[in-house]
């Protein structure tokens, strides 16, 4: 016989408390039926002998101490999974919302996932060609990596994510399935629309599964959204051997949902009011990227987060940076000068890049070219700082050469149209041509052999003028 509990003993924000319950497990899912016939889902977040604290996914609006009956399911939150999920749109908690009816699940899985044993991982080594010069050359995306985009409000991160999703090619694509799982947490309606429209236009919609929690949807559902999306991604990658690119936006809204939930639970806050366990919590999302031994599929994550006030030391980007394998940072100044994509090259980084580039992956001169571009561009910053004090005219010849290099680099290398898809060869050749505008002696990260092969000031002159 199923036990049902009538009424509640306390309601506080998204949390409700039930007294006198029996045999309730930590983290299990309950259904709350309202007297008006609607149903809400809730999760047990704290339990003791006679009392359970539940968070209600759809919010507690309209709940009273008497108008509910609660039933416990005996299971943690599970998501029904099927290959049919590609091409469909779901709510943040995994309900289909595109009006095409329910899916026929072929399997149910706990949305919290389990930690992947480091012994069972395959170290990611194969690069994904995004066709975007700044990313391919300087912060190469590797299959199985988690590489977030750190952006700010009003920057073109969404456009960049769409371009990556559209152009992403896997180096040794052998006809294996490639899919996209898109998780939107607390995004504005038009952002969700933008992604949907963009996928439609590029004809990719049938290989995209979308999980959408809009900014006016309940916050508890927001906490589930990335977990549902990743459960779906893991299923497609590891059971159907597909290469899945997961785009999660916006992680800052997600973290704020965690904060709201934590404070209503009365927990002791850490930095800026975020819960002390935010690191572990974010890690339980980001770490669900990778490649499992024995499977040919992969989960690659591109989470997008907006840095409040463009502050990279804010807890959300900060903790994210410690978990993810690098970051792509967007720059407001570049954006304002009309550069797209406005990637700030110096603070951006891909940690897995070193093992996924070079001979056999991209081209043998890749790491040398990338290193030299980084080193040269960092000198550009010094020259600019100096120029802002003493004026450009007063700079030494060497510094002037760097000023010029910096300008060309931003105009021709970083700047790239939304529809321009450059191959890795084009990108690297462009990089060498730009480096060739500098005096040969300045290229101290390149050995002589490569220098004689790629250093070509004449070609640079024809490309960029004197």
């Amino acid at each position, binding site marked *: 016989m199923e036990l049902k509990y009538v009424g509640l003993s306390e309601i506080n924000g998204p949390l409700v408390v039930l007294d006198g319950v029996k*045999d*309730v*497990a*930590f*983290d*299990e899912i309950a259904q709350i039926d309202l007297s008006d016939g609607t149903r809400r889902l809730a999760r047990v977040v*704290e*339990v*003791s*002998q006679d009392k359970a604290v539940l968070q209600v996914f759809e919010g507690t609006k309209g709940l009273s101490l008497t108008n509910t009956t609660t039933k416990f399911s005996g299971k943690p939150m599970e998501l029904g999974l099927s290959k049919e999920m590609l091409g469909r749109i779901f709510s943040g908690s995994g309900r289909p919302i595109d009006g095409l009816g329910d899916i026929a699940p072929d399997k149910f899985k*706990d949305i919290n*996932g*389990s*930690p*992947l*044993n*480091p*012994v*069972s*991982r*395959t*170290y990611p080594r194969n690069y994904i060609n995004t066709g975007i010069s700044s990313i391919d050359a300087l912060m190469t995306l590797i299959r199985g*990596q988690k590489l977030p985009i750190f952006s700010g409000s009003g920057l073109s991160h969404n456009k960049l994510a769409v371009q990556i999703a559209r152009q992403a090619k896997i180096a040794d694509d052998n006809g294996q399935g490639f899919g996209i799982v898109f998780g939107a947490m607390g995004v504005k309606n038009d952002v969700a629309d933008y992604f949907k429209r963009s996928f439609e236009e590029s004809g990719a919609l049938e290989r995209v599964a979308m999980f959408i929690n809009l900014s006016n949807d309940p916050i508890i559902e927001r906490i589930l959204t990335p977990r549902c999306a990743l459960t779906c991604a893991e299923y497609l990658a*590891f059971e159907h051997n597909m290469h899945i690119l997961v785009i999660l936006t916006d992680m800052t809204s997600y973290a704020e949902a965690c904060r709201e939930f934590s404070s209503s639970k009365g927990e*002791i806050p*850490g*930095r800026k009011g975020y819960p*002390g*366990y935010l*690191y*572990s919590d974010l*890690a*339980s999302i980001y*770490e*669900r990227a*990778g490649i499992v*031994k*024995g499977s040919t599929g992969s989960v690659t994550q591109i989470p997008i987060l907006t840095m409040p006030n463009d502050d990279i*030391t*804010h*807890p959300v980007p*900060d903790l994210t*940076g*410690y*978990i993810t*394998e690098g*970051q792509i940072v967007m720059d407001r100044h570049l954006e304002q000068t009309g550069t797209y994509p406005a990637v700030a090259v110096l603070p951006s*980084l891909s940690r897995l890049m*070193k093992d996924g580039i070079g001979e056999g992956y991209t081209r043998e001169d890749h790491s040398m070219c990338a*290193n030299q571009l*980084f080193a040269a561009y*960092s000198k550009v910053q010094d020259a600019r*700082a*100096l120029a802002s*004090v*003493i004026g450009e005219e*007063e700079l*030494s010849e060497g*510094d002037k050469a760097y000023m010029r290099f910096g300008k060309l680099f931003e105009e021709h290398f970083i700047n790239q149209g939304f529809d321009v898809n450059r191959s890795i060869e084009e990108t690297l050749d462009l990089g060498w041509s730009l480096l060739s505008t500098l005096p040969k*002696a300045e290229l101290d990260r390149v050995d002589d052999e490569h220098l004689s092969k790629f250093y070509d000031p004449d070609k640079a002159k024809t490309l960029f003028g004197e």
Partner: protein
Amino acid sequence: MDTIYSINGPVVKVKNSRTFSMQEMVYVGKKRLIGEVIRVTEEFTTIQVYEGTTGLMPGESVEGTGSAMSATLGPGILDNIFDGIQRPLKKLEELSGAFIADGANVPSVDTQKKYSCTITVNVGDRLSAGDIYCTCPETQLITHKCMLSPLSKGGEVIWRAPDGEYKVSDTVVKIKTDSGEQQELTLCQKWPIRTPRPCKQRLPGTRPLITGQRIIDTVLPIAKGGTAAIPGGFGTGKTMTQHQLAKWCDADIIVYIGCGERGNEMTQVLEEFSELIDPHTQRPLTDRTVLIANTSNMPVAAREASIYTGITLAEYYRDMGYHIAIMADSTSRWAEALREISGRLEEMPAEEGFPAYLPSRISEFYERAGYVENLNGSEGSVTIIGAVSPQGSDFSEPVTQNTKRFVRCFWALDKSLAYARHYPAINWNSSYSEYVGDLEKFYTENVNENFMNVRQQISSILVEENTLMEIVKLMGTDVLPDDQKLLIETARIVRVGFLQQNAYHKDDTYVPLEKQYLMMKTIVDFYTLAQKALSDGVLYDSILKTGWSDKIIKIKYDIPNDRPEMFGEYEKQMAADFEKLTEVA
């Protein structure tokens, strides 16, 4: 029977029980999850659970084990990878597949494998605490020595097994204590992870841990048995530096603790270390490595324990007379685990939500390092190198500040160096090492009597450059007089040619001390010659035109590690070139 009263994340409470003692290991629930008692009051016993508590119900049983959280110490630890509470991850994979399931109960070391043992005692011998009674080759590199537990009162050997093949749990020696009790000794023993293993006495650290990394060995050295912290924001190369040290330092055994870090990084260590050959012994690095992995999505309570598990394993090998280096990456995650558990216990927070006992916990950890004389008379050391991940790259946050108080070596990683891809991105101005004085004798006697002198000159060049840079930032280099331009140029040679080191170059990834010295000497020689040339009226530009600065910068690639005699040619050539310059002038 004691049962669960309440569950809140990894914290479980038992009501009205008087059976548990502090820090006792317990089994929680039907799945027998491993937990530890962290608070006992009249009403509640609080337990932190080292595994996921999803699905746990009030009313399920809690069973005490009567002993504290302990590590199993015996052959089979090396060349292995454990989780935070010493469960072998390879075994867990066989048991539950690629994803780690809860409640797996696996012995820490392989109980079926047989080791070829030599019993080193005879009937009638007297054994006291710490004495070795049996040895066996654990890997091709390391001989395992089984010792009488440090807590034992000792006794007389009354039986010994013949030499031969034994499993970990086989009895090989029996002793009779003074009180007449009989004790059976196997190849393994247990030790509570939170208690330091005792030693006879601490010795001063006078030998450096040689790492082959130039900025560390010469500018900021660390002694064997010393402590160092590597703080740095994300992307500054903490993990990379730790990997380089783990690969190349001259410790006998490396304990690598991946504490709350990325899963892929642990996989990388696993893959890379099994392929890499140790330069000192020509064996794969895994032969001398123990990995402890609690990746950031594994249970948080086990993260707190992983640090103690790691150091207990290290101390055990130290007792055998080995030199151990611990890489803890990263201690900030461990501190955050403390904070998380403390928050769940509703303790009064101190700075930034960290518990008030954070400094004492950090100091307890670092104090377990040291160069010691063991109970059995041998000498061994434990060196701790802890990475710190400051929130927001702000070194004034509590974990960095408290760590700074308890370590003697501070290798501060710098974002702007990392952005310029200058690796290792250790900032020579804000870092320090208190071991320089202790190690002076070693360097003078074993490398070159002139070593400290040359090192000092290199440091002064860097310090002077730092002062000059303030002017350069405002006015550019053109306005400086020639001798200061020369200093800036020499400092550039030091930075690019000496401090910057290429981990992916076959020669440059590990540089022997002798070559390090000769490189420094060449730079100092250049500076002296060039200064003299300037005072003889040679133009600064003609000094630049000799091309020596670039030639010295490329020495790291051009002179192989095994051809130090080539430096002599460089020296002659350079002297000749400068003589020509002076003649022309």
